């Protein structure tokens, strides 16, 4: 349709209103041509008769009621798709920004995607070895899972994500294609650059698709960024049988963009000003992880979000936790104690791990070790809070043992080098070594049989003295 509408009726934040526009589809894409020759993209977000509300992706700076001509493109937002995407860099709205020209599209995909029929899903079981003890043993990442990292400003979540990407790649089986889709939403230039350099160093850059919406880019584009990224991921996974790891950072910036957009539309706010549909909106992103019956590929998501004020009950981490299949929580006190990666074990969880570990996947004793480590570390916390009241000397012998276990656990198990890639056997054996610091009868989460096989106080001797 080449009809152009001259002028606008109203401008309000990122929204513009047009009157007397017939025959427009809901969520249709709009091109705004400015007098200076530049163009901007927008999307129809509300229709009332011939009155149309449009959300402008690049912002409304410089628009006036007169200097704009509007063209309706007659289709929803689409992303050109082809395997050429790999190794390329795009803006948050899916335009190439690496100067290598447009993508020659094999097909176009609606960036909103479609809900996956639960019947067509394959339940994820294949574990991804990350080589990081805390994750592999205690919150195993499964292919097709969505496992976010809950972090805070200034913590090493980016470093951890890079290590996961690098080591997960190494652990891939031969002959299986692996690629990374990276979506940056409102992150600093430095952070985006850090990821790019790290991908380069670990030799995956040619298999990375990057969508960058930096913190100084328009917020409306930020709402499109994860959708473009996931559309690319689904295409590569389901039509080219690749295993895709989608890293999305920072989901908090995304949610804030959504809030800004919602309030400019005049919607009724829910908690902390976020729109009432934040849950559904986040779900429409996270639920795009998975494996389907008809393809060999998979989409695994690692969304990263910074908890404002380290508050896990803030709406963004809270709603994320309700949708994702677990979470990896980073703890500030561990970070300050110099532990890397500072994984706060107790609130962290992987919901899918129970079916992807044990005999045939990792090792038969895996679930016993992880349950016992969790339970023992929970007791360490009790002992610590008691010690802070009555002093460490006053603690019972058992509590003292737990304190010692806690220290060693953090020092040897959680803490590991940025380039240290531990096998699952190393990790589980290390877990047993540490558990042997504790009296045998206090290991109540383990079957006697397993305990007989692995328990030997001598194993713990290396931690003493």
């Amino acid at each position, binding site marked *: 349709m080449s009809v152009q509408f001259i002028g606008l009726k109203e401008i309000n934040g990122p929204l513009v209103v047009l009157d007397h526009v*017939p*025959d*427009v*589809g*809901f969520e*249709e894409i709009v091109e705004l041509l400015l007098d200076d020759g530049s163009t901007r993209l927008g999307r129809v977000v*509300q*229709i*009332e*008769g*011939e009155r149309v509300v449009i959300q402008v992706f690049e912002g409304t700076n410089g628009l006036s009621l007169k200097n704009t001509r509007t063209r309706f493109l007659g*289709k*929803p937002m689409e992303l050109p798709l082809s395997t050429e995407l790999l190794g390329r860099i795009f803006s948050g709205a899916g335009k190439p920004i690496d100067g290598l020209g447009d993508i020659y599209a094999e097909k176009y995909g*609606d960036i909103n995607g*479609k*809900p*996956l029929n*639960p*019947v*067509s*899903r394959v*339940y994820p079981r294949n574990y991804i070895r990350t080589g990081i003890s805390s994750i592999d043993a205690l919150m195993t990442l499964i292919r097709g*899972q969505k496992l976010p990292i809950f972090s805070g400003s200034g913590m090493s979540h980016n470093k951890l994500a890079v290590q996961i990407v690098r080591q997960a790649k190494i652990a891939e089986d031969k002959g299986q294609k692996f690629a990374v889709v990276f979506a940056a939403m409102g992150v600093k230039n430095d952070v985006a650059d850090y990821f790019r350099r790290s991908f380069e160093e670990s030799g995956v850059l040619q298999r990375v698709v990057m969508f960058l919406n930096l913190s100084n880019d328009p917020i409306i584009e930020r709402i499109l960024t994860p959708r473009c990224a996931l559309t690319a991921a689904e295409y590569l996974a*389901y039509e080219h049988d690749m295993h895709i790891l989608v890293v999305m950072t920072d989901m908090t910036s995304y949610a804030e963009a959504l809030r800004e957009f919602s309030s400019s539309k005049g919607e*009724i*706010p*829910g*908690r902390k000003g976020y729109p*009432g549909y934040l*849950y*559904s909106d986040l*779900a*429409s992103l996270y*639920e795009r992880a*998975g494996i389907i*019956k*008809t393809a060999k590929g998979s989409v695994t998501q690692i969304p990263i979000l910074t908890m404002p004020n380290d508050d896990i*009950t803030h*709406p963004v981490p*809270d*709603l994320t*936790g*309700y*949708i994702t*299949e677990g979470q990896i929580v980073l703890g500030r006190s561990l970070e300050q104690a110099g532990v890397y990666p500072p994984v706060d074990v107790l*609130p962290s969880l992987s919901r899918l791990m*129970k*079916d992807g570990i044990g005999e045939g996947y990792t090792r038969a004793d895996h*679930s016993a070790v992880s349950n016992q480590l*969790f*339970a023992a570390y*929970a007791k360490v916390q009790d002992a610590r*809070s*008691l010690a802070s*009241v*009555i002093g460490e000397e006053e*603690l*019972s012998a058992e509590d003292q043992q737990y304190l010692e276990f806690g220290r060693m656990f953090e020092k040897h198990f959680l803490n590991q080098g940025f380039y240290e890639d531990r096998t699952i056997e190393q990790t589980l054996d290390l877990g047993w070594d540490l558990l042997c610091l504790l009296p045998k009868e206090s290991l*109540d*989460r383990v079957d006697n049989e397993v305990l007989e096989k692995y328990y030997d106080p001598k194993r713990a001797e290396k931690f003493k003295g």
Partner: protein
Amino acid sequence: MNNTVYSINGPVVTVRDTKDFSMLEMVYVGNKRLIGEVIGITDHATTIQVYESTTGMKPGEPVYPTGAPMSATLGPGILSNIFDGIERPLRSMEEASGAFIDEGNSIPSLDTEKKYDVTLTVKPGDQLKGGDIYATCPETPVILHKCMLSPTLKGEIVEVSPNGSYTINDTVAKLKTPKGEIVELTLCQKWPIRTPRPVAKRLPSDRPLITGQRVIDTLLPVAKGGTAAVPGGFGTGKTMTQHQLAKWCDADIIVYIGCGERGNEMTQVLEEFSELIDPKTGKALTDRTTLIANTSNMPVAAREASIYTGITLAEYYRDMGYHVAIMADSTSRWAEALREISGRLEEMPAEEGFPAYLPSRLSEFYERAGYMETLCGKEGSVTIIGAVSPQGSDFSEPVTQNTKRFVRTFWALDKSLAYARHYPAINWTTSYSEYIDDLKDYFDKNVSPDFLTCRQKINSYLAEENKLMEIVKLIGADVLPDDQKLIIEIARVVRVGFLQQNAYHKDDTYVPLEKQLKMMQAIIYLYEQSRKIIAKGIPVSEISDLGLFDMLTRMKYDIPNDHLELFDNYYHTIDTKLSQIK
């Protein structure tokens, strides 16, 4: 007729200047014929909520009335099936449109080609009233489907087809109503999802829903026909608890509603339930289960409807005389769907943006539970177990608070228990069950008169421990006198050995009431014998050194469910070991 779309805002569309629609009528919207429902009428505009994505819809597209409210199709083929929130079969949709769900799918809810082996139970001349059974057919190997006359009909049977195999739309009998109309009876009927199906009368809920989960059956039981809420933050095991109940509870039929939850979880239910064998019938669990899956990324309006679809299916089977349990995971997502649609309608919000009618909608839902005498004179029940996902794990938020008013059992899941991997993470101090008194007779007669006494004692150990822990947190356990130390020890046995239950252990995943009782008795025996010894001035540490507490902590694993006689050995061991001290 020119009813056309005027405005579009997400799932809410309006039609201007029409009087053709009635409230809650089902309509088809747009060229793709998306399913919608009328939710507001003024003389200027009719407001419709659409159950599918409205992307690409234009003003001026047609809207077709159907003249009937949103209804569920009820008939054989519901069990072992999986539907979306408005009863569209997901398996057939997969065949039609592949792995991703397309809009405008008009697939019949139930398989219209499958033939059932029908036995007619009426003969010409029989007078039937609403709810009476006129035919039966085996729907799955374990459930006999009973075709009942719609509650709105009555009359005389004038023609009956011979027994044989029929599809759900074949006429199997003809009924003459008092007005003289002839109604053709098939194997299925329709019922509006927002209207409760009528019953003869409500009966008291005096039988427990036996779940095999110790903390529930013993401490916090729910009655058949009762209501329970499971609130808990993420990662506290709501879904896990619901799955355990769906697998093991002694209802005849399970309706599992995945309302705004994860897609992978529904896949897991599908896979697990088809592999698991029901211990009572020896057949696959799917034979007694139906799933409603409206995952979080499926359209929000259909999520709102999924709860009603689910309970309508449940009521239908209750009317046949079955005991049905509904797992609704999660009612918070349903409440959020209400909020989202209410926001689009620009209604005045009450607490936290939720509409002011949230409490009345919740009570309407929970009140559809109950132990009933059905219209055909049988007894059936609908038990509702609703998960609640409070924002920020804060139980003072509106959905949890309002739910609490309408349910009689409250299983509060606790984050700190979950962090310590104590599952099921039901907090025994903040949870409650109002059914204890109602169920007393049942426990006395069918388990043992001792059951509730033991329960009381176990409860008192936990309550006592709770008090003592406040002191212990301040000054440590060492300063307590020995009788209080004994409480701490025995309460630990109760917590770890009794309340904690391992869903992945073959024996521990389901524990019969007899074993639960014997476990309690063993714990109580140890406590009482130890107390006698402590009264003689012997410190509790000497008893702990005997390993008796640890022995009872492990009894859930050491004694198989079918060898309960092994419990007798414990009494012997306790006696011998304690006598060594003297």
